[in-house]
């Protein structure tokens, strides 16, 4: 990796560290349990609260994080990371807006089950499973975009559980979405730090199969958990 790209990445990483620390500090004051009440009782424009809620959802949502780990596992160039993450972002932003504005909500368990499957898919894809099994590599960019659409529906479904007020819905929704991107940016930073460190060692490639197998495992557990919830609830 050329020095310039490397230093760009490090600048990118450390500039986010501060933001992350600030957010974690905010959590320790127990803000989160008031979130739902805020959403329930809030009326009018509330940009920063919605920013925060969106960011928090992304940083604490391990399903999103696992999927992102899968997506960038074999992306070694920062340009590619940017392209794939942007596709994911476009995907989930589209359905987030579409879902909330048209009041379409999918069962939360089902959408989470699909998100679980997206993790399994990416793990399997990283193992080269499709090439080996089907002699065919599904377009990875399209796949990321499609799963982005599902993740967005998940966000829309969760946001609609709270009866959002109509007048300032647009602005609040936009704030939420930007918050989601900030949260994704911040969590991606830390995933990248870990992966870049690990990539300096041979073990990254030695354990690539094991890592993606575990990713599939986690996705399957999440899938089974959500599907059970769907049939029981």
């Amino acid at each position: 990796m050329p020095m310039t790209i490397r230093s760009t990445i490090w600048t990118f990483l450390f500039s986010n560290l501060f933001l992350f620390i600030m957010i974690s500090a905010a959590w320790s004051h127990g803000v989160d349990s008031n979130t739902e009440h805020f959403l329930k009782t809030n009326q009018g424009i509330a940009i920063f609260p919605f920013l925060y809620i969106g960011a928090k959802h992304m940083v604490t949502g391990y399903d999103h994080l696992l999927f992102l780990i899968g997506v960038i596992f074999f992306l070694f160039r920062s340009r590619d990371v940017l392209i794939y993450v942007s596709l994911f972002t476009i995907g989930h932003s589209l359905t987030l807006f579409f879902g909330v504005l048209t009041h379409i909500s999918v069962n939360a368990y089902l959408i989470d089950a699909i998100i679980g499957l997206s993790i399994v898919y990416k793990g399997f894809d990283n193992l080269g499973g499709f090439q080996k099994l089907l002699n065919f590599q599904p377009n990875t960019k399209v796949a990321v975009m499609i799963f982005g659409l599902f993740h967005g529906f998940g966000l829309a479904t969760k946001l609609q559980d709270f009866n959002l007020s109509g007048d300032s819905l647009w602005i609040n929704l936009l704030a939420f979405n930007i918050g989601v991107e900030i949260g994704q940016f911040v969590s991606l930073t830390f995933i990248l730090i870990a992966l870049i460190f690990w990539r300096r060692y041979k073990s990254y490639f030695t354990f690539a199969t094991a890592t993606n197998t575990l990713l599939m495992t986690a996705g399957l557990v999440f899938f089974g958990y959500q599907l059970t919830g769907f049939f029981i609830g």
Partner: protein
Amino acid sequence: MTEYSPPETSLTKLIIASLFAFILATVILIGAVLPSEFGIDPTGVGKKMGLTALAPQSTESGQAPSDKEVVDPCEDLVKELDQLKMAQKEALEREKNKPIFIGSSGKKTTPNPTPSIEEAALPPELQNSPPQPIKTIQPTPANIPSTPLPKVTVAPTPIKTSAPTPLPPQWKDTISITIPPRNGLEYKFHVEKGEILTYSWKTNGSPVFFEFHGEPRGDTTGYFKSFKKTTDSQSSGSLTAPFAGSHGWYWQNDTTNPITLQLKTRGKYRVLGYQ
């Protein structure tokens, strides 16, 4: 596709990896996740490890708390209150015949083995009042109902005005809560399904926006059920938990001064405290 280079994995390796992932996921699901989250425990391993204790009780009997239920909360509450009234009457009868001890503080329910109805009917605030650090009751309209008149209706909302049911006099816990200006906070109790939380709280005069609500245990969707949501300077009653989980209040102080309130509770619950 220069940017994407999955390693060459042999078919055997791929099948082994996929099978391994599938088996491990199944073991984790059946052994840990399903017992803990839903109380589904086909192997009995979850019970042995004590994981089923984490599951909502209702699911063990086959009913899950559904976050899609469309029950009118008021209707529910009225039903619950009716049941509660019956239960309380029975309890009072029993108490009259045989003095019992309740409360963790070890205080007697009443010094008199046969309490008079009047005594039992006093608003709970007036009985067993421990030293209250901040109690500046002004005769404002807000706290007139709690002036020492026997058989005064304490509950202020339409749902609960039906009857000032004589409450057993002893409170288990009393806590003084201060809500900072322009701020909100939560105080919660863990209550199992069907258990009763009897409560009474009163502010130092100022009305406060509040929402009495419950969240099912293990729920991650952010769903909660609202029992009561209004602005008042006091509230009292009993809740029969519709599901196992954390139940309690969210208070919001929209004024520029701190509001102090005193919350008294009784029943079968575990204090979770500030959230």
